[in-house]
């Protein structure tokens, strides 16, 4: 059995959180171990290195330097021979796939991991006992052989089952993967050629255009309107423009580098490949991910703890009865057989199946609620989660720009940002609004993709960038059809948006028949204002004054402060001189560019998903800290954090407080500040102690502008505090954090393959709210597993005590191996599983997350309850039935003591009972098996009561009700199964179970009632004296 685990060592087994077989320890091979150690160290160093920021300077070089470094001609590219040479040297341009575990290893892990070990040990002990028995020809009973075989079969079948379950979810995983071979356009020896992406080498001159996937890390040397979508790398959904100039020290921020496996959205660009394959930024992240050591899942730890307890109990019982049987004068051999028998009897055969099925059921239920669980054990992990590190874009937000506010007529109007967007309420009758809407609709390059008339406007796909699309949709929705508008006022000229101008101008023919043109403009508000000399108020033009400017400033600041992207709008009616047919020249401007009329502002935001604020609130009441980690700007991040409640209402960051009180940051008592926005660049300079302090002292934390590696650092920081951390993410950049977190949650819709690979769970609808339902399910299953285990373990006592008394008192065996198996693998199974369907006793989302150190799945109180209290009552019920059957057939209890020797002797065929009658061996064996059947039925009957009391841990059954239909079915099922086993003709041959008189069914009922009453009283005391002695001793 594996009790400890080496951390930090990277083996394929450990990449899977379920505990794998123990690495073989061969003391002789010191040399090899040493080597391993060195390797381990090296590996660790590598990972530390990978965690650091990428250091490269290719983006700082001038083109000449670049050309020299890679000895490449910037127009003709590499010579083909040279390229081949480099290809041979560096290898193909592909990511090394993470070392996949072979199927048989996965299978073995299911077969020998965790709980199975206990059963295997039991099976092996059985075979050993059988071996001893046959070798010494002692009592040639095959019970031990059968038991061993059954145990092995149970583990095997359960192993197959869970393997099948996980294989099924990994199959769903595979369906996500798209296997399209990629091509790249390279220029070699002056010739353009299409080659496979894996043949691209460092120094290659490549050309990319809109729609291409970037084949490697590229330093641009020329670009025309090139924009790339880096979302798979950084999570930022906004396409970014790319040009050859060096703009930022940081490789990830600079605009002249395109990254491997990101997408070029529009434009074209040429560049030199500076890194391929695993040395690309993406490659480094991928290898960082696969190199991370992953800890055990909480449930695996719990099961290990459980195995400890069970083993201790088993060994304790076994050894003490070993001693006792020696003292009673049994031979050594017999005592050893007894020892093994007792240890094996302690193994709860059915529990493995029960736990697996319970987890599978929950996994299924979660999948229905859009949480696809890849690893069965992760089902519970979510329930123990105490910190969720969530991504912003796509998880908390809808991942689409939407118009949030409008400002015109010196008033701010709020637009509806809900996902449905049914009604928009603002001053639609203002003339200013008409003009604003027309500018927004006409001065806009976005358009709907064709054939989407049936879809709601908000769901339609568009061409063009996010903010223009947002405007387009908004106008289409709240004003009128943009298409008609554009048909009526055709565009005659346009200056597209660029980052130097920061505005966009389009000139349209006026709608009325005046044959003149109107110039429409939108752009950065301060730029727009600079062009204006007048403004519109309720449709009337006024000349610009200071008051208006101040109002504008305030509005701009207000909207900007909400983290929204603000655009300004203005227009100019061109005079008659520019009538129809005038040739507008946009390069050398031949039309007026001043004295525009300012109309208003429109601000946009990627709005939070509607269900998220509620979900965050639920998390908070459930004691789960939600930390936002995003690559976005702090202001936007903070605005969204406030919007969804990560920074709750009324809580302010130190900066807010300073701004309000007009005092310096240092003057504020940091203890009063509960919220903080941490900038990525600050995080970079922090020591882990400082990070720990932040994580400990602030309840509401937002990390903005973080790099992928920092997300990992944050996750590790949280784990250092002893938290169980869930991390969400969609980009490749998130995958190290996903892997490192106790449960990594990837996005099913927007998530990249790499992130899905690294995650334990996939949110099929990308919605943060689904996590909360997942948490709920996880907590519920933990509670219910406790109940299931309590239920299953209880019957262990009535199963063990017969054997113990058989040894000590020398009575005929009251319960045989077969009947034990009938209970564990037959009648107990469905009721135990039915407890997985039990609804929560109280609002499980209103209590703090489980403390993994103290709140164990199986603790001594549970064992005390199951073994010491309920189990004992059950055993008495069984023995009572046993004695009743024997007494009514002629063997009174007093005459049974010490009868074992003659009873078991098949040559004694005239054994006398209490009435002087004489019994043959077979006759009394039939009686014995009838007793065992009776014992079995009694256990079934007391298990009714046990099942009902296990429904709740604190509440009365009368409060909880009997709404669990599966549980009622379970009770009926176990009863019918027991009756079936008891009365079916032929069972006497097959399982040696014999029909019972009806009265014998009733013997256990008083005990059943006793169990029920006792536990109700116990729970009553617990409820009425919270924290009292009884609770501390018996509340499991």
């Amino acid at each position, binding site marked *: 059995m594996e009790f400890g685990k080496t951390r930090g060592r990277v083996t394929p087994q450990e990449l899977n959180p379920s505990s794998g077989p123990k690495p073989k320890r061969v003391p002789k091979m010191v040399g090899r171990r040493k080597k391993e150690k060195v390797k381990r160290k090296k590996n660790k160093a590598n990972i530390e290195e990978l965690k650091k920021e990428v250091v490269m300077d290719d983006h700082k070089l001038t083109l000449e330097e670049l050309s020299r470094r890679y000895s490449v001609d910037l127009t003709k590219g590499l010579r083909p021979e040279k390229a081949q040479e480099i290809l041979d040297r560096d290898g193909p341009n592909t990511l090394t796939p993470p070392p996949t575990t072979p199927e048989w290893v996965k299978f073995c892990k299911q077969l020998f991991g965790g709980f199975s070990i206990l059963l295997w040990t039991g099976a092996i002990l059985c075979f050993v006992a059988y071996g001893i028995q046959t070798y010494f020809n002692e009592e040639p009973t095959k019970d031990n052989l059968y038991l061993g075989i059954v145990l092995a079969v149970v583990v095997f079948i359960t192993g197959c089952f869970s393997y099948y379950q996980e294989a099924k979810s990994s199959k769903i995983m595979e369906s996500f993967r798209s296997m399209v071979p990629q091509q790249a356009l390279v220029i070699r020896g002056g010739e353009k050629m299409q080659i496979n992406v894996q043949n691209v080498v460092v120094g290659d001159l490549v050309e990319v255009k809109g729609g291409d996937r970037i084949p490697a890390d590229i330093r641009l040397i020329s670009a025309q309107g090139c924009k790339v979508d880096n979302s798979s790398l950084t999570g930022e959904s906004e396409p970014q423009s790319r040009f050859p100039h060096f703009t930022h020290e940081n490789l990830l921020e600079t605009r002249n580098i395109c990254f491997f496996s990101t997408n070029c959205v529009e434009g074209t660009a040429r560049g030199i490949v500076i890194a391929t394959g695993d040395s690309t930024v993406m490659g480094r992240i991928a290898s960082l991910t696969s190199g991370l050591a992953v800890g055990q899942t909480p449930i695996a730890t719990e099961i290990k703890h459980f195995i400890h307890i069970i083993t201790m109990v088993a060994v304790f019982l076994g050894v003490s009865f070993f001693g006792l049987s020696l003292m009673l004068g049994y031979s050594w051999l017999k005592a050893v057989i007894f020892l093994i028998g007792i240890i094996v009897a302690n193994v709860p055969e059915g529990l493995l199946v029960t736990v697996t099925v319970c987890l599978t059921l929950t996994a299924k239920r979660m999948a229905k609620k859009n949480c696809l669980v890849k690893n069965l054990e992760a089902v519970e992990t979510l329930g123990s989660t105490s910190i969720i590190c969530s991504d912003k874009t796509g998880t908390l937000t809808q991942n689409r720009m939407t118009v949030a506010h409008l400002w015109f007529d010196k008033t701010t109007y709020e637009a509806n940002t809900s996902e449905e967007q049914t009604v928009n309420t603002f001053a639609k009758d203002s003339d200013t609004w008409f003009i604003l809407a027309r500018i927004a609709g006409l001065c806009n390059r976005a358009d709907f993709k064709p054939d989407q008339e049936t879809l709601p406007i908000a769901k339609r796909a568009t061409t063009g960038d996010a903010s223009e699309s947002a405007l387009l949709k908004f106008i289409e929705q709240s004003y009128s059809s943009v298409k008609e508008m554009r048909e009526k006022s055709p565009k005659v000229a346009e200056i597209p948006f660029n980052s130097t101008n920061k505005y966009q101008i389009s000139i349209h023919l006026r709608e009325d028949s005046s044959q003149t043109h109107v110039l429409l403009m939108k752009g950065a508000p301060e730029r727009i204002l600079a062009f204006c000399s007048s403004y519109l108020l309720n449709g009337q033009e006024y000349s610009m004054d200071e008051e208006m400017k101040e109002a504008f400033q305030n509005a701009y600041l207000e909207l900007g402060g909400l983290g929204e992207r603000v655009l300004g709008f203005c227009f100019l009616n061109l005079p008659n001189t520019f009538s129809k047919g005038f040739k507008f020249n946009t390069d050398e401007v031949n039309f007026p560019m001043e004295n525009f009329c300012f109309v208003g502002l429109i601000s946009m935001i990627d709005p939070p998903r509607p269900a998220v604020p509620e979900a965050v609130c639920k998390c908070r009441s459930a004691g789960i800290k939600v930390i936002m980690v995003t690559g976005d700007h702090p202001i936007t991040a903070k605005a969204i954090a406030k919007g969804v409640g990560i920074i709750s209402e009324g809580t302010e960051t130190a900066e807010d407080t300073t701004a309000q009180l007009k005092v310096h940051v240092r003057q504020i008592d940091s203890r009063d500040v509960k919220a903080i926005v941490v900038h990525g660049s600050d995080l970079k300079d922090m020591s882990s102690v400082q990070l720990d302090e932040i994580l400990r002292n602030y309840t509401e934390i937002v990390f903005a502008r973080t790099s992928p590696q920092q997300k990992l650092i944050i996750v590790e920081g949280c784990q250092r505090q002893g938290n169980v951390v869930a991390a969400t993410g969609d980009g490749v950049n998130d995958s190290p954090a996903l892997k490192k977190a106790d449960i990594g949650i990837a996005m099913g819709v927007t998530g990249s393959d790499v992130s899905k690979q690294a995650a334990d769970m996939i949110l099929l609808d990308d919605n943060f709210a689904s996590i909360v339902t997942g948490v709920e399910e996880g907590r519920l299953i933990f509670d219910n597993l406790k109940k299931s285990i309590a239920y299953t373990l209880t019957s262990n006592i009535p199963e063990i005590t017969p054997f113990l008394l058989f040894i000590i008192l020398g009575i005929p065996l009251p319960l045989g191996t077969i009947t034990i198996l009938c209970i564990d693998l037959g009648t107990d199974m469905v009721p135990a599983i039915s407890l997985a369907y039990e609804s929560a006793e109280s609002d499980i989302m209103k209590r703090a997350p489980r403390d993994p150190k103290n709140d164990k799945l199986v603790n001594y109180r549970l064992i005390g309850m199951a073994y010491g209290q309920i189990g004992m009552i059950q055993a008495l019920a069984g023995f009572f039935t046993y004695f009743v059957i024997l007494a*009514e057939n002629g063997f009174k209890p007093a005459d049974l003591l010490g009868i074992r020797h003659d009873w078991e002797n098949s040559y004694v065929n005239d054994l*006398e009972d209490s009435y002087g009658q004489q*019994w043959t061996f077979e006759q009394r064996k039939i009686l014995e098996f009838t007793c065992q059947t009776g014992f079995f039925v009694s256990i079934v009957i007391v298990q009714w009561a046990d099942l009902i009391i296990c429904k709740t841990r604190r509440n009365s059954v009368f409060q909880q009700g009997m709404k669990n239909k599966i549980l009622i079915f379970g009770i009926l099922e176990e009863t019918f199964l027991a009756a079936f086993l008891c009365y079916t003709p032929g069972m006497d041959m097959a399982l040696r179970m014999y029909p019972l008189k009806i009265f014998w069914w009733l013997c256990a009922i008083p005990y059943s009632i006793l169990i029920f009453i006792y536990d109700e009283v116990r729970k009553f005391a617990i409820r009425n004296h919270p924290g009292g002695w009884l609770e501390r001793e018996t509340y499991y």
Partner: protein
Amino acid sequence: MQRLGPSLWTWDSSWQQAPATSLPLGVQKILLGSAFTSKIKVVLNQGPKKEILVLLPLGVSSLLNLWVQLQGCLFLGTFPAFILLFYLVFYGFLTAMFTLTMWVMLQTVSDHTPKYQDRLATPGLMIRPKTENLDVIVNVSDTESWDQHVQKLNKFLEPYNDSIQAQKNDVCRPGRYYEQPDNGVLNYPKRACQFNRTQLGDCSGIGDPTHYGYSTGQPCVFIKMNRVINFYAGANQSMNVTCVGKRDEDAENLGSFVMFPANGNIDLMYFPYYGKKFHVNYTQPLVAVKFLNVTPNVEVNVECRINAANIATDDERDKFAGRVAFKLRINKT
């Protein structure tokens, strides 16, 4: 005050007023007053001896209050002991409950007939001398090999001595059941019929120098039928025991034998049996088989069965239902 292990209960004589149960708890000690004082006395052994009296509350709800009180600082160190106390009470109660149900059950069980006899529909057969594996091995020359059999048989047949039989039992009319119905009043004790040792003829062992034939290699084996209460064996028809060799070669090796009483008859008058308690001097009828010329140095499988109208002897599983199989081996040099 002597300190015992933390989990031991002991009578403490230092508290003189009444015998008290004391529970040593490390440095603290709790004395439970005997039932009539209904007080719990807590003695703190730290420093100067202090005694604190706690009134034992009455009723369940105040018992629960007791548990609450227990978490007070006074009892903080006393935890393990209290869980022991709890279990002691709990198991005490369980024992009482179990005893009660057992007592009720035993009240319902009759003294003279068991409630169910369906497992004993066919009485089994058994042999004497009883050997470990039901094999009668006789080394004629080696006295010790059969002496133990002889000893056992002597003892077994002692109650059949004619004198004892005549003294205790009735002479009954053969060929019919000796019924002694209760007729509403307990007819107790029941009388038994005589089965005299002399009926066993050559196998009676009376004045027998051959020791039941064991010294001459012609051993006697006694066959008896298991007692079953109220069983009317034979269903009013005569019955007898027959023996054969199990297989053909066994039959050959078995040779001839004689049976006592003649023909292996078992008389109806020995039935029915009324049970140990009422049928005190009941003497089980026997059939003795004397094997006259068993082929020596060969193991012979013998099977004897009873031929009675209401006793089936073909039970597949129970090899002793109405029959008995044993091995016979006479070793002669």
